[in-house]
């Protein structure tokens, strides 16, 4: 412990300290401050870059999500259109098949009618022939052509009536 007043030491302290400030300011604090500032700038720019990268990544994620959403919508649309198209095709096919069936039925009906008519004509001829033969044998006379046809018509009419009666 030294409590004696020593102005010389006090002055030396001031001189030494002033000199130390001058020397350190030149050789230490200024370069150190520059280094610290450079590092601070580097850290700041790294943080900025990281932030920009994060924003970019977030943007990309959002873009991807948007693209995914659009793709999903597109897919749904395509599937829906496919369904619609298949429905249309099915409807058309059904319609065409209906039309063809109707045409075939119509054709068949016409064919039947034609055949029926033909059969009736044949039947009529046969009946007329039979009537002529029967009348020749029964009454010994020849009937004229007109009479034959009349008899045949009457026979056919009877046949038709009996058929209608059976049906009803």
């Amino acid at each position: 412990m030294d409590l004696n007043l020593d102005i010389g030491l006090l002055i030396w302290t001031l001189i030494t300290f002033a000199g130390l400030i001058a020397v350190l300011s030149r050789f230490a604090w200024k370069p150190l401050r520059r280094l610290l500032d450079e590092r601070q700038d580097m850290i700041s720019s790294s943080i900025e870059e990281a932030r920009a990268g994060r924003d970019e990544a977030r943007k990309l994620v959002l873009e991807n999500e948007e693209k995914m959403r659009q793709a999903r919508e597109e897919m749904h649309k395509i599937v829906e259109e496919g369904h619609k198209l298949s429905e249309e095709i099915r409807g058309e096919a059904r319609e065409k098949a209906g039309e063809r069936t109707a045409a075939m039925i119509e054709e068949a009906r016409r064919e039947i009618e034609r055949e029926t008519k033909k059969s009736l004509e044949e039947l009529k001829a046969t009946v007329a022939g039979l009537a002529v033969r029967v009348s020749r044998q029964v009454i010994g006379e020849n009937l004229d052509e007109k009479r034959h046809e009349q008899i045949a018509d009457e026979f056919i009419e009877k046949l038709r009536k009996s058929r209608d009666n059976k049906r009803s």
Partner: protein
Amino acid sequence: MEEATRVVLVEFPKVFGIDLSITNEVVLLWLGAIVTFLLAVAACRGREAATRGRFRNLFEMLVEMVEKEVIGGNANKATRALTPFLLTMFFFILVCNLLGMVPIPGVFKAVTSNINVTAGLAIAVFALTVVAEVSHHGVLGFLGRFMPAGIPRWAGVFLVPIEIASWLVRPLSLAVRLFANMVVGHVLLFVLIGMAVASGWWIVGVLPAAAAVVMSCFELFVCFIQAMVFTLLAGLYLKEAVEGHQATH
């Protein structure tokens, strides 16, 4: 452990009654300055991040701590200009304090346990405070600090002397605080080691020796804390001088 006494190494004739002879204390002071300079320059050499070692990291951490705690993060340019002064103050006091922990009796001692050294440092702070306040606020602004605003004129009769006294006591308190703390720690260590050596019987001596080891560790902490406290208060006074005394209250 023996306290180093004043030894004149190179004698100069007195100038206006002041003895500027080179003593062992002046040499220790210079040694402290040289060690501070070497440490600072060693920490600041090399520009690449790869050259950073533990020592440099520690040094930078201390520098940033002083800047953050003493100057403050949101300080203006004028206050920032005080950084070299305060950094030099902190590291110089720290090194001078730690030189007292070098266990070579009769050679090393903390020059900060000499009131003349701490007074010199406190006067440096005081002088810079006056210069900073006058340059930033003018002579009237400087004198206005002794008469707080909003006080009746008649109260100035009592307040001005009190303000002047409290202002003058600042460097005194700075000098005495550092001096007293360094002296007390070293005296305590001296007593404990003295007890351990003087006991003669190792079982009795081991207790004060162990206490001396613990106290030495504590003393290292005190060396750091006292350097920090001195710098912190110096920074506070200087900031007050630069930014105006109303701003810091």
